[in-house]
């Protein structure tokens, strides 16, 4: 059992290394996935800052409010890449080779989601750097700042497994991409990522209140700039645990039975 877990981790690590290499070898992808989050931070802060700033609690600037949220927006959008990457792999023959080899069944999936996690953390660091340049600050100390990043990354990792499943059942990379966007857009916007939930119409508030994205945004924000941490934090942990419990076995099962 322990030996099997060891092989799984080792195989997952090897596949993750391969996926990281892919990322480094596609300069365009590297460039745009770097530029895009920077662009989002700047655009949202300066375009919406003035309009939304007024509805924020006293003493909270929009930059401070936005940054933890936009980390989640970027991470969530990035999670759809898992579906696209996996779908592209399956279109090529290389997945067939993996599947005919005596390697761990879950390694291809774990390697993909782990590599995507590393990319996510890289992008988060980059966005925080840009945030600092325009005036954002973590207010609650280093441990809380790290916890805030961990919350965002953990949520992104869980989403990756959902999108891994989408990638496995989609008919091709294009279908995977469309499906990913349809799912992620309403989820991201109907949440407390960009605006306080109490500014929304009541039907949307009731959706946003129970959204895992809102829980993640509230937890990350509380850890970054202060506020009630525990209530949203346990919700995030429940969501992340629940998603992984459901989707990891589902993905492995689907992977085994690919036609």
């Amino acid at each position, binding site marked *: 059992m322990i030996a099997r877990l060891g092989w799984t981790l080792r195989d997952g690590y090897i*596949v993750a290394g*391969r996926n990281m*290499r*892919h990322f480094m*070898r596609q300069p365009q992808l590297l460039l745009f996935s770097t530029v895009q989050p920077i662009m989002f931070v700047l655009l949202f802060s300066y375009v919406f800052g003035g309009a939304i700033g007024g509805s924020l609690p006293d003493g909270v600037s929009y930059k401070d409010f936005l940054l933890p949220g936009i980390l989640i927006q970027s991470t969530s959008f990035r999670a759809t890449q898992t579906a696209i990457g996996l779908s592209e792999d399956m279109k090529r*023959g290389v997945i*067939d*080779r993996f*599947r005919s080899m005596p390697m761990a069944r879950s390694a291809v999936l774990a390697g993909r989601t782990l590599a995507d996690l590393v990319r996510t953390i890289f992008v988060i660091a980059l966005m925080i750097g840009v945030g600092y340049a325009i005036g954002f600050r973590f207010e609650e100390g280093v441990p809380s700042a790290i916890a805030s990043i961990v919350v965002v990354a953990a949520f992104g990792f869980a989403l990756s497994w959902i999108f891994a499943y989408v990638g496995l059942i989609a008919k091709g990379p294009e279908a995977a991409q469309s499906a990913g966007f349809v799912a992620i857009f309403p989820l991201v916007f109907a949440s407390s990522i960009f605006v306080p939930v109490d500014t929304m119409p009541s039907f949307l508030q009731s959706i946003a209140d129970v959204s895992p994205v809102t829980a993640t945004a509230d937890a990350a924000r509380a850890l970054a700039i202060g506020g009630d941490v525990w209530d949203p934090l346990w919700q995030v942990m429940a969501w992340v645990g629940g998603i992984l419990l459901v989707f990891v076995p589902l993905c492995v099962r689907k992977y085994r039975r690919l036609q």
Partner: protein
Amino acid sequence: MTGNAVEAQGIVKRFGPTVALGGVDLAVEEGSVLGLLGPNGAGKTTMVRVLATLLPPDSGSASVFGQDVVAQASQVRESIALTGQFAAIDELLTGRENLRMFGRLFRLDRHQAARRADELLERFDLADAGDRTARTYSGGMRRRLDLASSLLTQPRMLFLDEPTTGLDPRSRIQIWDAIRDLVREGTTVLLTTQYLEEADQLTDRIAVIDHGRVIAEGTGDELKDSVGGQMIEARLTNPSDRPRAIEALTHLGCGTPEPSPSERELTLSAPEDGITMIEAAAHALREADIPVSDLGLRRPTLDDVFLTLTGAPATEDGAEPTTDEQHLQRHLPVSRADAPSPEDPGEREAAGAPR
């Protein structure tokens, strides 16, 4: 003898309404090479995927070295390697990185994987290209890298799905040599091919598969004999002479003409071999005053084996009965597209060879 490396009984696989495999029985003796010969869509790839544990059959059972491909799939994967129809390599990695990665996933440690990668790059003539990304490789180089990726650990059983389709002659011969080396070292091989020539060159036995069924099995010679030895082939100057030409040639003892995509082309089995037959045919045509632009003898090709084996008026497998005409539409475009082009009559002598 050593017994069978692969045994399959009654393998059935459906994809929706399509029956890809309609009950295939197959056995590959350990240490031998079996060729699975058939046109596109015959079920070759599906069969290989079932045996390589990638696809569970709907019914029937198959084993590799006595281990069931469904129930004991992970044990089967320990002893097999698969080189698929589309080069299953990672295009964004270099050749060396590909081999190292697959080596490590075959449970070699970092050091062994690196050494084995170097050996294989050398062996497959890829040493110079080893540090370029596989995206920059030619078709032949990809296939060689693909085959090398199957050999990081010496597999006992190797599945090769159309290993040379679309390759130039030099690359094809390199792949053939590599396969022969493996067989000498004791690997059992099951390869699929659309080319009789390739099956002839490499395999001990050939199973002909069509519409998901094995319709003939034997050595290459046995199959060719079943087609009837040499074929005589004429290209008529005037298509309208066709009936008269057929009459003149059957008079010599030739068989009935094979279906042909062009009225000008006439192919019949020849009762005798060699120069005597050509002489007699030329004489008969001249006597009948039938001008021809080309006349020759050739060995049976995949087309001939196929038309003979599958061209019987009523199919035995209960699939849709076909007239000869439908048959032509079904088979000829396939073999025309992938097998040798008949356009240049001067090259017909080598017509069995893929190019």
